[in-house]
């Protein structure tokens, strides 16, 4: 984008919610469950309201109500898309931005999740792959019971990851140490994400919802430097 040195462009992943669903009790229940399962993923997560085919919403107060309803689930309503001019004006009056229409796809149902369900339900990916923010860097050992989520970016760990620890990233995961816990890359659905580690002793690895547990790893690669790649819906582990 232009505007000299003062304004930079960036692409972000946001959750898109169809306006009609806001009053649907089934949606409310499902949302509550999702948020409870992955609270960190949803905390202050930006939401855009899709007004396509939605009646009403011609009053700023209705957007205020929608904002409050979402805030109760720790979500932040930041804008609208696909609104009629009157709706967009009302949204603006309520302080909401107007987003360009995107080719939103229905939320993809991924194969059965591991029991702990710490893999967040992938948000409908926008048409373009989001540009990555600078990778998240962790320099201390990741202790058992710790969960780290690198939203919208890669995760780089330069120490060991203990058994019982969990690394989640929308991008790639790199561990320059022993990986003994769980690593879940491409958490928002990016099938091109990879996992790299210096010592492969993981409990579970996953890319975009496809996972392998320790039992399924090739025995000769245990303890080696490997990369995990999703190839045609199959996870492969190869020596690095």
């Amino acid at each position, binding site marked *: 984008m232009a505007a000299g040195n003062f304004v930079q462009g960036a692409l972000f992943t946001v959750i898109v919610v169809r306006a009609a669903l806001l009053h649907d009790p089934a949606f409310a229940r499902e949302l509550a469950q999702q948020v409870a399962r992955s609270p960190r993923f949803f905390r202050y997560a930006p939401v855009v309201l899709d007004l396509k085919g939605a009646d009403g919403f011609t009053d700023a107060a209705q957007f205020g109500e929608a904002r409050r309803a979402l805030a109760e689930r720790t979500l932040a309503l930041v804008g609208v898309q696909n609104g009629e001019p009157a709706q967009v004006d009302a949204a603006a009056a309520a302080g909401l931005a107007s987003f360009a229409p995107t080719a939103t796809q229905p939320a993809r149902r991924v194969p059965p999740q591991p029991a702990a369900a710490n893999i967040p339900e992938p948000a409908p990916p926008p048409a373009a792959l989001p540009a990555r923010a600078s990778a998240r860097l962790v320099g*201390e*050992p990741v*202790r*058992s*019971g*710790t969960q780290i989520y690198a939203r919208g970016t890669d995760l780089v760990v330069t*120490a*060991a990851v*203990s*058994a*019982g*620890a969990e690394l989640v990233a929308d991008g790639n995961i790199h561990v320059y140490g022993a990986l*003994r816990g769980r690593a879940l890359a491409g958490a928002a659905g990016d099938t091109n994400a990879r996992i790299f580690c210096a010592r492969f002793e993981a409990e579970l690895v996953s890319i975009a919802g496809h996972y392998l547990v320790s039992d399924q790893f090739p025995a000769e690669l245990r303890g080696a430097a490997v990369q995990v790649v999703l190839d045609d819906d199959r996870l492969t582990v190869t020596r690095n």
Partner: protein
Amino acid sequence: MRGGWGKEILAKVVVITSGKGGVGKTTTAAAFAAGLALRGHRTVVIDFDVGLRNLDLIMGCERRVVFDFINVINGDANLNQALIKDKRNDNLYIFPTSQTRDKDALKRDGVERVLAELTQQFDYVICDSPAGIEHGAITALYFADSAIIVTNPEVSSVRDSDRIIGILSSRSRRAERNESPPDIHLLLTRYDPARVARGEMLTVEDVKEILSIPLLGVIPESESVLRASNTGTPVTFDPDSAAGRAYLDAVARFLGEQREMRFVKPERRSFIRVLFGRA
């Protein structure tokens, strides 16, 4: 220690914790406190295991408990009414806890007040933590300046120790205030070099590698520990005990001295030892 011009140097608060139960926290708390007292430091050891108290038993003062930690927190008694002086060493005091209440009785502001008073009167305040990662254990570690992570050379103990180290790094008061974190030390207990040599037990190196914290000491498995608990004597007061001597080494290292790591190699059982049954 008191500084000059009436300036108080506050005691160091040391938590003995582990995550896993039954690994030797109370034995260590008693032994360590006694070891510090033997070195001339005024030391108090506090039982944080409300409802399942056993520090008083291990210290041999269970028949002298009148008031306890919860009484003092609730204002039913003052600190001096609850503190019990050890009969064997003038530097050593015990602060027992309640058996009839539970850990909800540990109100954080009350604990803070009590510790503030204790750190004025003593050089070291040793906190014997309960097992687990809930309120009791969190309260015990919250105010710590130092932590000793008691670990058995066994996989579930190591996993739980790792967990509690993570919690110490993120949920201690120092962490919350963005101060330098408590210094964390590894104490490997119930170590049996013969079993390690047979490949039945994790080695010191295995545990150090997984936990990545500095090693304070290795305490050998020892029959003297059971004898010590049953007689209410901290094992460091037993001159014949290998565990006691290992604890004294650990105390020395904690105080900044160098000590070679003993009791980590399988002993060759000499005839004399067998004859006199030294454990």
